[in-house]
């Protein structure tokens, strides 16, 4: 269930679009922010809230890569491995991260703290290699910078 604050936000959002279907993405974002990921139950809830078929919501959630259909760790490390990052050592960076955390790409550490995901270009080519941690960009990465960052994650 959405918090009262989110329900209020929803009413505000409704004024922006002529159809309720257009609220699909904004509402799914709200759901992900509140619950951390989008479970099948959340999909049902959103579908009921917007009077849309669950199939539509499922279709949208699975189409967009940023909606997590599985729970992720407290720190979601999304490493860009596309061209510009690749040219500046993203492959090594990914190996280093996996080695340090003892998990493979797509996995979460047993303490549920870190999840590593490989993502496509994040528009940070001038500060490559980089990764997105939850909402923030961590750029110009080196092994030392990664180690320092991981140590600071509480």
């Amino acid at each position, binding site marked *: 269930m959405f918090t009262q604050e989110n329900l209020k936000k929803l009413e505000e959002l409704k004024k922006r679009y002529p159809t309720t279907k257009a609220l699909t*993405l904004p509402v799914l974002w709200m759901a992900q922010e509140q619950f951390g990921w989008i479970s099948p139950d959340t999909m049902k809830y959103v579908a009921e809230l917007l009077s849309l078929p669950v199939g539509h919501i499922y279709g949208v959630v699975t189409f*967009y890569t940023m909606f997590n259909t599985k729970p992720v760790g407290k720190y979601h490390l999304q490493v860009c491995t596309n061209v510009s990052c*690749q040219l500046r050592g993203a492959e090594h960076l990914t190996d280093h991260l996996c080695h340090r955390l003892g998990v493979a790409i797509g996995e979460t550490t047993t303490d549920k703290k870190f999840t590593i995901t490989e993502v496509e*270009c994040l528009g940070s*080519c001038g500060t490559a290699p980089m990764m997105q941690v939850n909402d923030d960009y961590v750029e110009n990465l080196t092994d030392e910078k990664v180690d320092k960052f991981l140590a600071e994650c509480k």
Partner: protein
Amino acid sequence: MTTPKFILPDIPDLHRIEVYEQHHGYQALRKALGMKPNDVIEEVKKSNLRGRGGACFPTGLKWSFMPKQSTKPKYLCANGDESEPGTFKDRQIFEFNPHLFIEGSVIAAYAMGIKAIYVYVRGEYAKWVTMLQHAIDDAYAHNYIGSNIFGSGFNTELYIHKGAGAYICGEESALMNSIEGDRGYPRVKPPFPAQYGLWGCPTTINNIETLANIPVILNIGWEAFSKIGAPKQPGTLLYGISGHVNKPGVYELPTGVLLTDIIYNYAGGVPSNKKIKAVIPGGSSTMWLKGEEIDGVKMDADSLKAVGTSIGTAGVIIMDEDTDILKVLTRITHFYYHESCGQCTPCREGCGWMEKILKRFIAGEGTMQDVDLLLDIANNIEGNTICALGDAAAWPIQSFIKKFRGEFERRVKKAPPEKKYVPPPHLVTLQA
């Protein structure tokens, strides 16, 4: 030589509305609201401004496609999906000069009689969404957006619509579907957005950088604007340079600047003075250039077309002589495979096949027949899909095979040594 900087001038704190106002901020909007909407469109037409999203379509002409009289509401979508690998320019506008973009959008809305603007920003840009929202709130508070702007009686609203991670949503019709709450599937054209766009209403889609150029045109006049850079594509461009250079980043320079000038004078050259093996001039979907070819190449639509590639989003990617460029091509192809929306068979299946073949070469399992097969698949994707993603996947492969065939030859599967004929023992005895 001083180059004019309009989009990203060196003014500290320009993202703050007071600072922006001190530097002629929102004066172009005031000027536009004093003009007839059609005169604004004419001004943009005469300036010869071309879209900055990659297709280089004349902006004024696009605006003139919008019906003057419409019983349905009209919409403007500002495209800030910015997902083409090697492109990172719009985020600079959101961060350093968001009001320029907002001002341009409101002018565009006035020129076309639009009451609602949706700014589509990619979901990963959470930080920039916050920054832009802050600027929008300020602009609302100063009545540069909203109702009765500058007492002119003109009203328009501006909303951010956040994407959720899909390259394809940068394609204009997919972007509209995404705003409507659907999967980002491109639509078959015609009908074009100016007739049947968002919710079936007349819609114009412009890139963020394109809209940021509008106040510049009104401030300096179309004549002065049309004299900057290359005559057929005037103005300044935000060149994003990445890969093997000493100072990667976004540089605002006139169109038609020399590619080597950007690499060596602005981006500080290649680390350890290595030679350049290959250059992608306008984002991952543009055709590759060999290192030997770049001398004298100018960065504008026509000059790049003449050397068989395109300006795209002006995202220049440099690869030095030690780069395993086949691996780079494989990564790019993987990107298109991953981002294909899955509507059209040639793109959905073809991109996967191309990636598989390229991976065979990486593993040393490819054969020379595979090169022809790869080219055949690329040729059959190009032009056979609803949107340009298929073409974007095919072009790098086609140009790579044309220019770097040797890379494949170097890695083909070595034929096993010919087996010597060893006669069976009973034959040996007979021969003896």
